[in-house]
Structure formats: C-alpha cells, structure tokens
C-alpha cells in the first residue's frame, strides 16, 4: 500500500481509475444448460476518474450502473476490457493484489439494513475489515472511534454497542459509510446511497458523503437514478443507457445544456415541485429500455428517440462527439 501512495505523489495527474472498453456480460441459461445468450449489462464503457473528483453515474434500472459498480469493486470479472487503478491493471492482480485493492475501494450499499450483519454490534462491524487487514487491537479501537466521529455518530460510546436494528435508517447508513471508510480507501463507490431513506434525511447523508469526499480528497463515484440530487453533490455526470455511457459533462453544463436526446427526455420527465405541473402532460418517449440480451442495432435509444433518423441511427453505432467544449454525447445528430 505504501508503494502505491508514493507512486501517487510522483504522478498526481495520473487518473485514479480508468475503465477501458469495459464489458461485463452475464450468461443466461435455461434449466441450467440451455444457453440463451448473454445479458450485456456493461457493454463498452470508457471513462477516467481523477483523484479527489466526485462523479455521478445516472441511469434508470437495468442500464447497467450497478453492474458497473460491482465490476469496479472486483465483485464481477469483466468479460472484456480492463479497469486500471493507479496505473495497475485489475486483470493482472493476483489474490493478494485483489485483497489490497479492496482495501483501497470503499463500498456504500443501497439498503443499509440489508448491508449490515444483524448479529454484530457497530464495534464488531467496524472492526472486521481492520482485523482482516491485520490492524492491532488498540489501533483498531482508535480508528473505529475516529471514523464514528467523522460520520457524526458521536459520542462514539453511544453507538459502539448498538446492533443495526436499534438504529434509524439514517444512522444505519452512517455505519455503512463508516465501514466503507475505515480502511482509508482512495475510491468510494456509493450505489444509490439514499434511495431507501426519507426525503429529509437524504440531503443529510449526501452532505456527509460530499464533505468526507472533500476533506479526504477521495474519488467518489455516486450511482443514482435521480438526476435532481446530483447538482450539489457531484462535479461530473455520466448518463448511462442500456449498458453504455451516452453523455458526459460537468454537472451544471449537463443539466443546463443536455445534448443527448435520452438525457433531454430524462430531464423533461423530472418535476421540480410546482403547482402548475398538474395542469399539463409531460413529454415522455414511448416504449421501454431495451433488453440487454439483444440490444437494438445502431444507437440503443433509437427505437424510442423522438429525433431518430431512419437509415442512420438504426444502422450506425454512434461514437462520442463533442458538441460543446468538454461535453461528450454519443448521438449521431452531432455529426
């Protein structure tokens, strides 16, 4: 680990993590032996995240965003392509290398209650990763108390002996965050960290994540279906559709000048609370997200796209275009 840190100091411009033509496919079988094909959950994803940057991956269910997160965490083997972490290829990490890698990447799950073992108290939950990585008893205790303070579960003594069911949803999520942080990772992956929480608690947890990210200069990859929460908590957005990234830009640029027709549809479907919303119907593209077993040819959004150009969009696979400076969109309209 110390080696990696010194390397980082040498080359601060090197991206922390990169995905290169990443594909994660799941083979689908019927009755255990009939091959039905592959679900192409992540299908050709490229990105690179800088140190200390907060990014959001936004998309609807089934777009592959959680499979992408799990691939980055090393929980799924990529079918093709590679993840490069601090210049090292994940494919070439052995068992030991993988264990060290997992210490450098924290994971905040969606459902805090499901993510916490019900029969361990907070102290044991937080001690477990430290034990696995060989941290001694007194150092463990010190780090557990420090991290509880950091996620605002203080005084720590009030929480150390509590079991998950004795905590509120917001407090459980803080424990999950504390566990993700305890090995001092440089990348934090949060998969829908607030979708199970109440509105008034959501902002509190997002604020906390954002502050921790700023203070620790972490890279935060925040996965969400809710575009309205990202403005204040991310620097850049990746919009995903059917296993691919279709649009990338900084937050304000993307929200104020969406380029891809899918992003435009998403933004048009979202309401800010306003009494006039009840007076008019919203523009919603017809149809549904395609099956990832047999995605449509050409642009994957073309069957639903209001601006679809017959003979073009259903044939050609769109590459990334740059319709505005620094703003990438995979749509043939920009050609």
């Amino acid at each position, binding site marked *: 680990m110390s080696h990696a840190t010194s390397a980082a100091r040498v080359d601060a411009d090197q991206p922390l993590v990169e995905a290169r033509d990443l594909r994660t496919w799941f083979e689908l079988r019927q009755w255990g032996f009939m091959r039905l094909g592959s679900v192409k959950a992540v299908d050709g994803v490229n990105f690179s995240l800088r140190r200390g940057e907060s990014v959001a991956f936004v998309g*609807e*269910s089934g777009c592959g965003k959680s499979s992408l997160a799990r691939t980055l965490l090393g929980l799924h083997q990529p079918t093709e392509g590679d993840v490069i972490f601090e210049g090292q290829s994940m494919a070439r990490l052995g068992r030991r290398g993988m264990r060290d890698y997992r210490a450098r990447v924290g994971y905040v799950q969606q459902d805090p209650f499901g993510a916490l073992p019900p029969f361990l108290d907070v102290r044991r939950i937080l001690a477990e990763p430290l034990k696995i990585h060989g941290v001694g008893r007194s150092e463990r205790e010190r780090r557990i108390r420090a991290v509880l303070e950091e996620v605002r579960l203080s005084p720590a003594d009030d929480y150390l002996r509590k079991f998950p069911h004795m905590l*509120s949803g917001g407090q459980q999520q803080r424990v999950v965050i504390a566990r993700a942080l305890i090995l001092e990772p440089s990348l934090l992956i949060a998969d829908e960290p607030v979708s199970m929480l*109440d*509105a*008034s*608690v*959501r*902002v*509190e947890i997002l*604020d906390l994540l954002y502050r921790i990210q700023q203070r620790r200069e972490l890279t935060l990859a925040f996965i969400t*279906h*809710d*575009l*309205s*929460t990202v*403005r*204040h908590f991310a620097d850049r957005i990746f919009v995903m559709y059917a296993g691919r990234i279709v649009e990338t830009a900084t937050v304000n640029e993307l*929200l104020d000048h969406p380029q891809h027709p899918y992003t435009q*549809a*998403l*933004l048009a*479907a*979202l*309401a*800010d*609370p*306003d*009494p006039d*919303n*009840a007076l008019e*119907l*919203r523009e*919603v*593209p017809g149809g*549904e*997200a395609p099956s990832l077993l047999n995605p449509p040819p050409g642009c994957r959004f073309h069957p639903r796209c209001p601006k679809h150009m017959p003979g073009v969009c259903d044939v050609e696979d769109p590459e990334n275009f740059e319709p505005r400076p620094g703003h990438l969109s995979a749509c043939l309209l920009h050609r």
Partner: protein
Amino acid sequence: MAVPLLSVENLSLNYHTRQGLVQAVAGVDFEIRHREALVVLGESGCGKSSLAKTLMRTLPRNAGRPEGRVLLEGEDIMALDEERFRRQVRWLRIALVMQASMNALNPVVRVGEQVAEPLRVLRGWSRVRAQERAAEVFDLVGISTDFLTRYPFELSGGMRQRVVLAMALVTDPQLIILDEPTSALDVLTQASIMNVLKRIKREQGTSFILITHDVATSSELADRVALMYAGQIVETSSAAEFFREPAHPYARMLMDSVPRLHQEARPTHIPGQPPSLLDPPSGCRFADRCPQRFDLCERDPGAFRKGDRRRVRCWLHAGGSQLS
C-alpha cells in the same frame, strides 16, 4: 354548498404492539370534493398508509377499532357493517392501488381476467361483458388490448402498474386511493403513469387521494395537499399555496430539503427525528425540531383556519379562528 365527495372527521387509529399502543392516525380531518385530487404527503411512519387502510377497511389484525367519522356523499360508511361495506363501497365506490401492488398480481391468471374480476364478483357480470369493460379500461390506461391475454410475468413493471390501475378503474369508482403508485418505477415510467392519472382525472372526473413521500411527484396531480407528521395533518392547503408558500414550519423545511434540478439553492435537511408514536408529545409534535418554537408549543395547537379551506396546525398561525 354541495356535499363533499368524502369527508373525514376526527379519524384515529391505534395499533397494538408488544411495546404498547401506537397511535398511527391521531385525529385527522379532511374533505375531498368531486373531481378533486388530494395529495397526502408525509415521510415514512407518519401514518399516511394507515389512513388509506382505514378508509378501505383493510387493516391488519393488530389494529384497534378506528374512531371518527368517514362520510361518503353524506353517508357514514364507518357505520356500515362489513358485508354492506363490501357490497356497496369497497371497489365499487372507492378503489385502492396499494404500494407495490403491481407485484401482487396473480402470476397464473391472465391479466385481463384479473382486471375483470371485480365486475364479475361484485356486479355479477358475465365473463364476456366483463372482458369488454376490461378492454375499455386497458385503452384508458394506455395498454394495447392484445395484452389482455398475457400473464403478469410477460409485462414490465410499468405495464403491470398500468394493469393495477386498470383494475381500480374497472368499476368506475368515484374515488381512487393511490398509495405510492410510482415509487418503485423509473423516472420515465413514473412520468408516463402520472400522465395517465392526469388524463383519467380530466376525462373521467375521478377523484383521487394520492399518498406519497415524494414532494416533486405529488405536485403532478395535486389540487390540494394535506401534509402529515407523526399521525396528524399539520397543514391542508391548495396546491398553489402549498408549493409556493407553505405555512407550517415543517412544510417549509420539507420544501427546502427537496433537491431541485433548476435551482442553485442548496437543499437543507431537517435535524432530528419524528417523535415515537408510542408516546407522542402532548404539545405540538414538531416542536422538538422546530426552529421557531416558543412557550405556547408545549400545548397542542389544534388546526387554525386560514382563509376558506386552508388549515394549519401551528401556534404561529393562531391569528385565524380555531377549529377544535
């Protein structure tokens, strides 16, 4: 003045639990006029789903007997015995779309049959006639009638939600209660379901109670908003009043906690937690979290009238006349 479609007076409901009596609904009053949509807005545990179950009489076994009156076009439906309620009210005049009910469809019965079932059971219609009506409501909710003969597993989540909605519409009820109808759905599907609801309201003149925790979605259908907190309605306002100038301190803080797409202001959270309903405070239930609390808040404010139909349960609005 015309008799409102539904008027709920001082409704209360308790649950018996091992820890004691939980007061889930504590003296709730509201009314809905014909063709009106009322949003019951609140966070989890505020009693909003219990309210729906009380109105439909589908309470779990550990619920106590509800108190208060529920008048449907002037008739007290709480006083009806179970058999008459089943024959005359449930699903015929008030239908319910429960939370996640799209996952409760019978997996081995064609969806057309399931949608037609209320007509066959409650109205005694023939299979053919009921199927014809089912085809009509499929049209209404925007599903092709080809889907009548499909099974639930062949439909996507959004389609199944439309089927459940069709089932609620099939008897042409006056009031449909929707409990979190879109919370499990994707953004685009959610928007198209809300479009369907708006169209039904406009074309069929159905009234709705929309129960939700989602402030932004609630504004898609609301004529009026009732905000619940810890078992009580703390504010009832028209949609325009509520979304532009909420009156209750909780309403204001809740609106400030909503992240917005098109606004620079950073959302803020509400510190603290709602009180336990095992032993709720005797005064204002929001007082502990309220930045504007003062000595009067130790006592229950009751609902103050502001204007014709606006009610606010807060001492800061004591200028209006008190109701109870």
